[in-house]
């Protein structure tokens, strides 16, 4: 499936980059597809409640009541009808794009399978809710939709009577049918809401509201469209006539023309196979998983920072089991953990300043990329650096490739997510004179592969979120480059520009030609180190 992901990704990248440039990452609709879907759902729900007040059930009353809303009360119910329709259409479109994009970004496998699979019934429910809505208008399009849909369901060997028979003669249909339709059109969106809730169960801090500016702009667009092109009926349904030429809503009914070509059984087959295929995608093949995060109780003081920062609700706090004088301890659910390492970045004990006399192990970390190993690697890389403006680039595996900017004066380290980097490492690099500057690189802003890597990193550096970067650390020696996987060139440019503006560290001796870089200074404890050691049971 990687070839398909690559093709889709190639299609998305120019749009994402273009929109990021035009409207900025915060208002880029592609960065908020799920949240916008929710927003559209609420527009549909609120407008639907208003329309329900004026809707009459009955073979002639239904159409007449909709006509009344459209023409006599065009300024309120008419606009509501249009909003109902256009927000529904946008919901379908955004749902499909959301699914395709998550697939292209490979954000559907591993522990994310649950969110992906629970999205499949959402597709069916959105279409079912929308299509029953078309029936309610009881115009020519409704007649067509009723005929085709019922013929499709009649193929299933579960109905003793033909449903389609109700729609071929005016004598065969009665007013109770519309009562059933109203019930369906209300209950299906409610079920949809319940499934949406399940869909988000394994997502920590799900974004269900788009940024205010984007929401307002989108709503204005819907209102403008409703006024310019109000939703209209297509003449009353006449069951004595076969529906002829129709204005189809291609968002909901794009596959309806297939019923004129294929048999209902064939379409059930295609729909069934497609559904099963989408369900099976996370396991075709399953993602190779890194070892999941591990809690080291000797270093865990139950501070809950890892729980707060985990984007996938994979960590919980439970009563202490080792007799240490703390109330709780962190526990990782391997099934939910995506091995992003953000928890290690949040852990107060994951600091390179810790004493060398004991093995550096943080309260929580990835076994494959231990904090001690990261410290050793950065120190080793620093020793090989040469030049006046040495830079250490710490990148993420899902952003621009950090190693593409390696040189004699630029060392690179790549982590699963930039959120895995405890801010004390930046402090350590600069205060120990390991480099004159640090570049942090990751996914595109607002589009972190692990959801919160960039957001948490920014907040930690700004001193707004624990663990905070000390205020004494010179911010001008830190550069952040959020350019995503297609941004190798942008990263190279940013690193070059950053290097050009760097001055030698005042506290460290810059490496001179022909001489090796100075050895690291004697390790000191950072100001809050002693307190941390106390908190972590004297071992931190």
């Amino acid at each position, binding site marked *: 499936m990687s070839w398909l992901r690559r093709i889709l990704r190639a299609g998305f990248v120019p749009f994402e980059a273009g929109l990021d440039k*035009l409207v900025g990452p915060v208002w880029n609709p592609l960065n908020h597809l799920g949240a916008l879907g929710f927003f559209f759902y609420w527009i549909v729900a609120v407008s639907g409640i208003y329309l329900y007040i004026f809707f009459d059930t009955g073979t002639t009353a239904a159409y007449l009541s909709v006509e009344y809303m459209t023409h006599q009360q065009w300024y309120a119910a008419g606009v509501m009808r249009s909003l109902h329709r256009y927000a529904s259409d946008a919901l379908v479109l955004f749902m499909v794009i959301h699914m395709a994009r998550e697939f292209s970004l490979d954000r559907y496998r591993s522990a994310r399978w649950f969110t992906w699979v629970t999205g499949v019934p959402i597709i069916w429910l959105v279409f079912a809710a929308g299509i029953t809505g078309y029936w309610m208008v009881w115009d020519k399009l409704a007649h067509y939709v009723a005929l085709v849909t019922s013929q499709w369901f009649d193929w299933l060997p579960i109905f*003793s009577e033909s449903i389609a028979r109700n729609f*071929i003669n005016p004598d065969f249909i009665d007013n109770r049918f519309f009562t059933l339709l109203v019930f369906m059109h209300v209950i299906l969106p409610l079920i949809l809401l319940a499934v949406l809730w399940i869909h988000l169960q394994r997502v920590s801090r799900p974004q269900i509201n788009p940024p205010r500016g984007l929401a307002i702009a989108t709503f204005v667009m819907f209102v403008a469209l409703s006024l310019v*092109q109000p939703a209209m009926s297509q003449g009353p349904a006449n069951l004595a006539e076969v529906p002829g*030429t*129709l204005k189809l809503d291609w968002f909901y009914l794009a596959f309806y023309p297939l019923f004129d070509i294929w048999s209902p059984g064939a379409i059930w087959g295609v729909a069934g196979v497609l559904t099963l295929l989408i369900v099976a995608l996370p396991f075709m093949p399953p993602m190779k998983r890194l070892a999941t995060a591990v809690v080291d109780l000797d270093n865990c003081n139950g501070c809950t920072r890892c729980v707060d920062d985990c984007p996938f609700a994979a960590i919980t706090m439970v009563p202490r089991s080792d007799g240490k004088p703390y109330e709780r301890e962190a526990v990782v659910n391997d099934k939910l953990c995506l091995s992003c390492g953000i928890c290690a970045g949040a852990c107060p004990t994951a600091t390179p300043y810790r004493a060398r006399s004991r093995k550096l192990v943080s309260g929580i970390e990835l076994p494959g990329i231990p904090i001690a190993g990261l410290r050793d690697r950065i120190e080793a890389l620093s020793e090989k650096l040469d030049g006046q403006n040495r830079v250490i680039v710490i990148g993420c595996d899902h952003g621009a490739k950090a190693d593409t900017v390696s040189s004699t004066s630029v060392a690179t380290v790549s982590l699963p997510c930039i959120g895995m980097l405890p801010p004390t490492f930046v402090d350590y690099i600069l205060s120990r004179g390991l480099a004159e500057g640090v570049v942090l690189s990751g996914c595109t802003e607002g589009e972190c592969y692990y959801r919160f890597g960039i957001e948490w990193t920014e907040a930690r550096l700004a001193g707004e979120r624990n663990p905070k970067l000390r205020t004494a650390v010179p911010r001008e020696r830190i550069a952040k480059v959020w350019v995503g996987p297609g941004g190798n060139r942008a990263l190279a440019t940013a690193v070059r520009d950053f290097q050009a503006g760097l001055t030698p560290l005042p506290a460290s001796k810059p490496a001179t030609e022909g001489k090796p870089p100075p050895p690291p200074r004697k390790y000191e404890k950072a100001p809050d180190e002693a307190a941390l050691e106390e908190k972590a049971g004297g071992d931190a």
Partner: protein
Amino acid sequence: MRKVRQMAALLVVLALFGVMLGYFTYRPSYTHFPDDKALIKISFITGGQRVGKCIRRTRAQLAKLPPHKRKVLICPRERYPIHLEVLVDGQPRNQATVRPAGLSSDGSSKFYRGLVVTPGRHVIVARLIDSGRTAGYDFETRKEIALTPRQHFIIDFQRDRGGFIFR
């Protein structure tokens, strides 16, 4: 200033999106059924006659049975399939035999077929066999009809109303 520029750009992007949304919500139009044709729809559900005859139990036989099983008339469940023929202007346009539904073949036979014809006058003949007979028909109706463009003409069947009903 940057925010204002970005909001202006966002409104332009959303306007383009709105144009796309407005277009595909109604366009392009689709012709499900042409204006120069009419449709004869055969639509009914009926059960064939029972394959075996019903047996009436004697009083002596009933007395031997437990009270809750004392049913006087015992009828075999299986029904004959329904054979249907429809001729339009003397030409056979539909011939079908539909088996009764159910594992014991004791349910109804369901028909839902459409015949596309040109509008105008036509002679329709509908024939049905529900008794398994090999010669002749149990029901036969002949009617001359005039169809208008896109008319939905129904051939229904209700045994208790005498057989075929043309609507």
